[in-house]
């Protein structure tokens, strides 16, 4: 029997505000426990929440980037539950009037385009973090009240690979929109995974399970591979799938049942009386729409058209906004944008990955790369020297022209000098000369190499070749 898989994700994206959703407490990561707290986020009696306007703005920007309808009227609701990670005993969220409805994310899977539908995006506050000791649990409320966008997808995802592609694409869009730092290590993107399988002959979706609180994309992928297999096995052996919440155990590589899901009704949502509705007029929305950044997909097309890059290269560059920004900065200052791309696609990415660095960590400025390309294009340095200078720039930064001058790396293009060295190479290597003349044209390369060695690699290889040919063939 073949089975169809339906996966829907609920992705929590932390917005990049400096203060919390409803109070002025800091949102920075890594502070000592309970140092970013105040009477509002601790739920002290008599306090009132006030909305952070940037959190609203960023959520709308995210919605516009995903093609959502932005609600002209939106409100907040209380989601009641009793758990010590929320000191108010309710979480402020949005129930029936979220900020954004609908939308989609395009993904590419095995070279094919696919669209994953977005159901809605709502805004809510994060909860506290608990740690468990023997007999007691400790709670840190630094995270409580940090604005989180919850992006809910349609059950359009049909494999672990698609889920992974979706998350990567979503992260890319959020980074381009500058609505979130998307730092996974700091828990900026967390995800609940809903998954069901059904025999291909059945049209109704199967019973779903929910895997809670995944904080790495790899984890989502691995958990889905396991969960899909588990559900198929269960159906094959005639078992019933229970609607339940499961937890991914990355060490054991399995999902484990947590609790039978309480029905939605149990949260007893009702309108948050302490917050007034958000009413966005179309002028405001259009003003924000006009300021939207270019998306990776559009940028890729533009790179191909504007800078004459191959589509593949443009795709690699735009994958990472920082890399694409760096490229553009350098390309703007260069007459040879294709060469800039070649350096970035090869040496730059290689050195970054070898040394485990981010683009932001290196001293080399985009203008230095543009300068290096200029030195190569004007034949001031040859390509092997250029690689050497690139290495220096990568490690220490600086002005490439200055480095070339200081280290005496300029190409030797002096024909008289090269002429002498070519003669010497011919005298020193009679065997290669003989090989060449008896038809082994490759022997010329060896002789070019000898001259390059005599100039410590600085000779203009083209010139050396020409001189050699004239002498050997003449």
């Amino acid at each position: 029997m073949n089975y169809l898989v339906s996966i829907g994700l609920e992705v929590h994206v932390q917005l990049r505000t400096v203060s919390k959703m409803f109070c002025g407490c800091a949102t920075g990561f890594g502070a000592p426990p309970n140092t970013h707290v105040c009477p509002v986020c601790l739920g002290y009696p008599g306090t009132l929440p006030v909305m952070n306007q940037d959190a609203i703005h960023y959520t709308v920007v995210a919605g516009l980037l995903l093609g959502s309808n932005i609600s002209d009227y939106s409100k907040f609701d209380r989601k009641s539950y009793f758990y010590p990670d929320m000191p108010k005993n309710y979480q402020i969220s949005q129930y029936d009037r979220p900020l954004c409805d609908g939308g989609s994310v395009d993904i590419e899977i095995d070279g094919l385009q696919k669209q994953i539908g977005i159901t809605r995006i709502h805004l809510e506050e994060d909860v506290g973090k608990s740690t468990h000791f023997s007999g007691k649990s400790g709670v840190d409320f630094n995270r409580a009240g940090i604005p989180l966008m919850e992006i809910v997808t349609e059950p359009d995802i049909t494999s672990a690979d698609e889920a992974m592609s979706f998350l990567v694409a979503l992260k890319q869009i959020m980074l381009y929109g500058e609505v979130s730092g998307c730092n996974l290590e700091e828990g900026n993107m967390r995800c609940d995974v809903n998954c069901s399988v059904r025999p291909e002959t059945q049209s109704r979706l199967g019973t779903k399970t929910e895997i809670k609180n995944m904080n790495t994309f790899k984890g989502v992928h691995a958990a889905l591979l396991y969960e899909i297999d588990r559900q198929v096995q269960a159906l094959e052996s005639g078992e019933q799938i229970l609607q339940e919440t499961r937890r991914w155990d990355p060490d054991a590589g399995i999902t484990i049942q947590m609790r039978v899901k309480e029905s939605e009704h149990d949260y007893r949502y009702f309108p948050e009386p302490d917050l007034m509705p958000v009413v966005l007029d179309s002028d405001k929305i259009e003003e924000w729409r006009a300021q939207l950044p270019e998306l990776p997909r559009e940028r890729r097309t533009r790179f191909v058209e504007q800078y004459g890059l191959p589509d593949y290269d443009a795709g690699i560059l735009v994958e990472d906004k920082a890399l694409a920004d760096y490229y553009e900065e350098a390309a703007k200052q260069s007459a040879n944008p294709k060469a800039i791309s070649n350096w970035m696609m090869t040496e730059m990415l290689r050195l970054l990955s070898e040394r485990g660095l981010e683009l932001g960590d290196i001293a080399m400025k985009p203008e230095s790369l543009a300068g290096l390309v200029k030195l190569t294009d004007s034949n001031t340095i040859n390509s092997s020297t250029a690689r050497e200078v690139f290495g220096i720039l990568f490690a220490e930064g600086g002005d490439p022209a200055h480095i070339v001058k200081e280290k005496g790396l300029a190409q030797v293009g002096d024909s008289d000098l090269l002429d002498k060295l070519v003669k010497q190479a011919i005298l020193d290597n009679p065997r290669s000369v003989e090989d060449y003349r008896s038809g082994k044209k490759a022997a010329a390369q060896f002789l070019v190499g000898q001259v390059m060695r005599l100039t410590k690699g600085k000779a203009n290889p083209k010139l050396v070749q020409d001189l050699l040919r004239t002498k050997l063939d003449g």
Partner: protein
Amino acid sequence: MQSDNQNVDRIDVSYVAHLARLHLDKEEIESFQGQLEETLDYVRKISELDVEGIEPTAHAVSVQNVFRADEERPGLNREQVLENSPAHNEEQILVPKIIE
């Protein structure tokens, strides 16, 4: 645990108590049952109003878009916070073990 009575006319006190993590004995349940129903009856008066043609609203006043700028402000210091809690260690508020 599911409520066997999701009907709003009658409150399932033991179910609501379970959701609120309250442990009530039988007598308490009975006593709250009466009290809560009285309260509900009182509030139910509002349904006698004719609301034909009136848009539902979440708020009684027509104020909207009350925002603050995204600016950081100092909060409480930790000693104060921990002092206000029933139990704590050096850094965290302590609660009965909650892992499931």
